[in-house]
């Protein structure tokens, strides 16, 4: 029986993705990190806890991946079926900026400061036919 599941455990809440990304927060200095870290990049403390980072933010910067990357890129795409994708940093409510694939993939669709929300996409299927999921962000308001 095939199912959908995260490509990598611990990046986002599952099976309830509405709670968004999972990072860590340092109990000594308050700084956040994504993915979660057991030690703090800001103050070297090892006193960190997991923290829900939410699923909404604004676009801090962006680019577009216009050609299919080489390995370690690993999807079910071929050079013929590859679709360009956006890449950006999303500024979250806690201030942390998280790097993410973006659904939008043309310059006309992307503007610094625009509201963004998290969604899940299938990266590839494994040998059991399971859909392996990762997070990406897209415009919070559908453009017309």
């Amino acid at each position, binding site marked *: 029986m095939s199912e959908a599941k995260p*490509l990598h455990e611990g990046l986002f809440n599952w099976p309830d993705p509405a709670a968004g990304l999972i990072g860590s927060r340092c109990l000594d200095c308050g700084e956040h990190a994504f*993915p979660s870290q057991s030690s703090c990049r800001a103050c070297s403390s090892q006193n960190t806890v997991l923290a829900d980072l939410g699923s909404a933010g604004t676009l801090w910067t962006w680019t577009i991946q216009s050609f299919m*990357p080489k390995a*370690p*890129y690993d999807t079910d795409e071929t050079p013929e079926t590859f679709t360009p994708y956006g890449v950006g940093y999303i500024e979250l409510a806690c201030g942390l900026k998280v790097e993410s*694939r973006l659904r939008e993939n043309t310059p006309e669709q992307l503007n610094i400061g625009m509201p963004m929300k998290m969604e899940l996409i299938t990266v590839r299927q494994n040998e059991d036919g399971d859909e392996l999921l990762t997070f990406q962000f897209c415009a919070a308001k559908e453009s017309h």
Partner: protein
Amino acid sequence: MDVAIVGVGLHPFGRTASMSGLEQGAAAVRAALADAGTDFKAMQFAFGGSQDGGNADSLVNLLGLTGLQFTNVANGCATGGSSLNAAYSAIKSEQYDVGLVVGFDKHARGAFNPQPKDWGLEDWYGETGLMLTTQYFGMKIQRYMHDHGISRDTLIRVAEKAYRNGSLTPTAWRRTALSWEEIDNAPMVSEPLNKYMFCSPAEGGCALVVCRSDIAHRFHPRPIYLKTAVVRSRNYGSFEVFSPSQPPEVADSPTVTASTAAFELAGVGPSDIDVAQLQDTEVGAEIMHMAENGFCAHGDQERWLAEGATDINGKLPVNTDGGCLANGEPVGASGLRQVHEICVQLRGEAGERQVAGEPQVGYTHVYGAPGISGVNILTR
């Protein structure tokens, strides 16, 4: 004890199918030794590095097994800068009188192919398509253009200058000047940067003979003095490549900290610099590095490029040999090529691309993953 550079050697950058990376390094060493009028047996130490061309200390198999202290340096894009920094300390501390700095490389064609685990990252990061340096460069200049009012025209002007200067440099890889239209219409790689706005991995070698300043004239009639050699890594908050997340506050880059320290140690300021080499992995990098190294305010690059201020005949010539854009980037050799070019300019030996007015003070800046920067200040 002050430190002098008395021999410079370069094996041309680009592609040399008939030679290994190591052989290109050895050719550069031989050229530097000949320039200094000395030989390998006289070298008391060597610092060298190569990312993909083999162990630098294997050069002794080609140059002679003389028993010298040979230290391999591996520090990414700052390998050359770190080697020179180590040599500077070896002379400055009077541990040694004369030695060698060498870097070489031979990369496969196409973009570098980094692996997540080498960078402390997990596989998902690469598998989902985030492990590309080109994305980082695109995103960094995108934000910078937004914050500081830099236009796409300025990106094109930097590329134009690079290939124009490359056309004047016999050892450069890209020796054909490109028109505005050719650059403007090149295939997009990573918004807003297109094919002609990026440098490519390449091959090549570069070497320097360094010695105590009080014996410099034994080797060369026009020694160049290395006033300072500084290397710094990133601070928390600096916006660097391969970062799944960035802290809220953007901190000064390692370029700023290295540059500030170098100016302080050398006792000169940005306005004293007559000719500079600034890391130009892509055009955005050169633009940002003009300000990060203190040569102009953020945003002033728009006017500087429009006025040709960084042209060979401008007020601060930058990347007079075409930089990484025209020479390509053999990682181990690239930072030393910058120093080579400054030495050539300060000696007055740069031919068609010579900066007029007998430049007295030169500056080199290298920057690379994962957030490391090296600055050298040199004088006649």
